[in-house]
């Protein structure tokens, strides 16, 4: 064994899969996590993980999974990685199953599969409605075994602060802070994998994301030169609970298993929902999208709910809420398949979804965009070349990214149950890429001079010192609230350029305010305010990338919706009709202009936005999204 050293930052699904792949090959991995491993946001994923097993008599195929994913993402994803992702999915499931993951079973004892959005076949493997937690158990146990064997060393309660690059700009390690002692320390490594998850906290509290999903780590490497792609594409999950502290996710599986979304036809109808007869309910998704009904993709469902509540004034009682109804389904069936979300709803809303429909509204959920990562196209298969050191490599040599913090697989909108898949699969692929990278390395990080490590430690200590001794007036937690409110109102479900211009100006102002923070405590031990203050500063910088990317894209694509540039579908569904032909011509012209990846680069006076072509080598984008 060559026994190289690799740093993995993040202990969710992506980070654990990368760790497993790298340490499983005999290299030593140092795993950094903000908290005890197993508390990552991956455990919050509920509904399932997609893989074509074709066990439900529906003639499902990998080709269909590829098409659904590309089309669901409005054709914006690079196609070779998506092809390999869908082809690799059954192998990921098999490995999870061997690990002992408690996947739900058919009466024959095989893996059961259920329906999810944007899809017509049952393709989603699941473990009750706590699939993310169950998958985490599986990989966590495997990593613990490698830890017991001495191949993995965990750094729990350490926060990643920055990269260390050598003179050639190659990443040679990181600087991190012990969240207890506040000690700032450099760690050398031959490769670094970032698996730091999403950034839903930019929209707090109107988000399904955990409080540590801040995007701060991705922001930090962006500020150190890593490119950030498709930042404007952020998913709003259509069915989140209402809540002032957090909007908790109610899995898409609720709709996949037969849940129906509706509002009273008369918004002033004050009757209990169960007393409203069917004829007086409006099942607007089924009405507008008869072909897919309640299981349209998330961006479509979120905009429909938005339109019903905000534009038509048809929300329940005129408010921002609609019903998600399970009460017509068999109780035992729902309890077995969705028990975990029923329990969350009962605990936090105080009513039973089996007795009374749930009340829901869209909330910030998932970043399709993320750190730009490379791939090597394999001309023999049309997919990604297995084991290429280019796969999942960021624009900084030696730095890899996987999981939600990369931008790899979901284009302009992610399909439900593709995220547990991409998190796991990308961790595996990034791990394999790192193995190739290590094999090609001429020298390790040990022989390097201390200068760049010391310099980065000093830079980070200076930031801490500035915050601890600063005499500002801004409470970092209040700044976070201001950021969430700003992003929710101006960079949300529906966007327009005037609002985005104001958002950009307001974010610049917020960044200025964040330079004058008052920590309100000077404790040198486990000072959580210090850590949060640093995160907030970096969140604001990342929000600027999102706003600038959204401003630069004058079209509607997936989750990025600017009504001014909408191309409404023709009323005819017949592709041969003249109005459809006309629509197609406009759709093609729009693609010629905008079917491009947005790439942001850090610049002292703000994000520099450029566009690069999308690899469309697998399937020509010739099907507009029409889920009617």
């Amino acid at each position, binding site marked *: 064994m060559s026994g190289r050293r690799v740093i993995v930052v993040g202990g969710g699904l992506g980070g654990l899969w990368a760790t*497993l792949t790298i340490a499983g090959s005999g290299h030593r991995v140092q795993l950094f996590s903000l908290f*005890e491993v197993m*508390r990552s946001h991956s455990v919050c994923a509920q509904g399932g993980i997609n893989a074509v097993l074709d066990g439900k008599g529906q003639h499902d195929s990998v080709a269909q999974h590829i098409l659904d994913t590309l089309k669901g993402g409005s054709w914006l994803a690079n196609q070779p990685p998506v092809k390999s992702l869908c082809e690799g999915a059954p192998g990921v499931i098999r490995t999870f199953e061997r690990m002992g993951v408690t996947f739900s079973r058919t009466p024959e004892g095989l893996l059961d599969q259920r329906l999810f959005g944007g899809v017509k076949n049952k393709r989603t493997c699941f473990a009750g409605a706590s699939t993310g937690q169950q998958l985490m158990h599986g990989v966590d146990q495997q990593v613990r075994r490698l830890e017991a064997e001495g191949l993995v060393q965990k750094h729990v309660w350490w926060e990643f602060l920055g990269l260390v690059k050598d003179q050639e700009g190659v990443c040679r390690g990181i600087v991190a802070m012990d969240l207890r002692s506040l000690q700032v320390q450099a760690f050398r490594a031959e490769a670094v994998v970032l698996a730091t998850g999403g950034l839903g906290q930019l929209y707090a509290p109107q988000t399904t994301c955990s409080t540590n999903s801040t995007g701060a780590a991705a922001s930090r490497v962006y500020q150190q030169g890593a490119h950030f792609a498709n930042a404007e594409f952020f998913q709003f999950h259509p069915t989140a609970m209402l809540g002032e*502290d957090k909007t908790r*996710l109610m899995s898409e599986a609720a709709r996949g298993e037969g849940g129906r979304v509706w509002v009273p036809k008369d918004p002033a109808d004050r009757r209990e929902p169960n007393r409203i007869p069917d004829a007086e309910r409006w099942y607007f998704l089924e009405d507008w999208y008869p072909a897919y009904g309640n299981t349209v993709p998330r961006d479509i469902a979120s905009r429909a709910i938005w339109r019903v509540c905000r534009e038509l004034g048809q929300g329940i009682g005129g408010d921002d809420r609609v019903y998600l109804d399970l009460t017509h389904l068999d109780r035992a069936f729902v309890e077995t398949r969705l028990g975990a979300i029923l329990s969350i709803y009962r605990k936090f809303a105080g009513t039973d979804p089996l007795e009374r429909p749930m009340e829901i509204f869209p909330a910030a959920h998932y970043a399709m965009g993320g750190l730009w990562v490379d791939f090597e196209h394999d001309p023999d298969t049309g997919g990604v070349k297995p084991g290429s050191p280019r796969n999942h490599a960021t624009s900084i040599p030696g730095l890899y990214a996987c999981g939600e913090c990369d931008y790899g697989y979901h284009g302009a909108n992610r399909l439900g149950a593709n995220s547990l898949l991409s998190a796991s699969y990308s961790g595996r692929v990034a791990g394999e890429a790192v193995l190739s990278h290590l094999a090609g390395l001429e020298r390790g990080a040990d022989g390097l001079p201390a200068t760049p490590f010391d310099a980065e430690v000093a830079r980070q200590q200076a930031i801490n010192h500035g915050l601890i001794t600063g005499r500002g007036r801004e409470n970092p937690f209040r700044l976070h609230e201001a950021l969430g409110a700003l992003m929710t109102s101006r960079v949300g479900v529906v966007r327009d350029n005037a609002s985005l211009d104001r958002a950009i100006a307001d974010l610049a102002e917020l960044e200025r305010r964040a330079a004058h923070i008052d920590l309100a405590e000077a404790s040198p031990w486990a000072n959580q305010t210090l850590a949060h203050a640093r995160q907030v500063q970096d969140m604001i910088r990342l929000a600027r990338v999102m706003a600038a990317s959204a401003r630069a894209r004058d079209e509607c694509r997936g989750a990025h919706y600017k009504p001014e540039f909408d191309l409404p579908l023709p009323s005819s569904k017949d592709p041969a009709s003249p109005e459809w032909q006309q629509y197609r011509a406009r759709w093609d012209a729009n693609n010629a202009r905008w079917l491009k990846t947005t790439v942001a680069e850090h610049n002292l006076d703000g994000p520099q936005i450029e566009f690069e072509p999308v690899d469309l080598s697998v399937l020509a984008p010739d099907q507009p999204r029409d889920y009617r």
Partner: protein
Amino acid sequence: MTGIAGTDQLDIERSLDSDGGGARETDAAKRAGTGTQCTDAANSHTVELRIRRQDTPSTASYWQSVLVPVRPGDNVVSVLRTLRLNPVARDGRRVDPVAFEHNCMEEVCGACAMLIDGAPRPACSALLAELGNVIRLEPLPKFPVVRDLMVDRARLFEHLKRVRAWVRLDGPWDNHERAPRIAQRQWAADYLYSRCINCGACLAACPQFPESATAAARPGRTFLGPQALAQVRLLNAHPLGRYDKADRLQAIMAAGGLTDCGNAQNCVRVCPKQIPLTTAIGELGRQTTVQALKDLFGA
């Protein structure tokens, strides 16, 4: 718990033993609405948090009282978050923000477990509507305090190593083989145990689970507790996990293993996920009996 090492620096007026009156109402009264707990006007509702604080692992703890405004639907985590916006003590003095752990706020990450009015439970699912207008918050016992309500639960994860809570894969790669079939009935029984969120509430409540100082003095030989034992039950049932069943059973037949369980049943009562921990312990009792016979006769 060992004695309360508090210096009561700030403004706690009554001792712990006598402050229960305001906090303890009948369940019926709690659920009846806010009438009994709302002393202020309905729209400016506040609660008093009595927090046992500790600045560092080696300094003494002390009690501090704060008043926090409450919104509808609030829980203990959300009011601790509100407190960070304006950390002042009840007497108006500015205090350090309270250190505590939380992440998912939907009772699946396990981070926020603490003692709430003396009961170990995740703070995020402790709704204020179910609590009184004086709420006592303390760090989860049995684990070393890092700061305030933040504790170090490393022992939880060390115990999973001690019982070898994993399937031994040949490697993480795809070997194109699936695991054998599992009946729905067995799935339903196993799934109960795989919902463990490692919050540590069961260990905090277990009279047999030792304080961290006791455990540190006898490393690897003190009681594992129900959390790790339940995972042995789970993995021993898996078609591949079964291959290493004997190793796991021998691990829990050693010092600090299964027989240290005193059958107090506290663990099942406090588990936020209603995991049948004592059922697992019962099943393991039978498995270890068989294993002991096998070991004896060399089977």
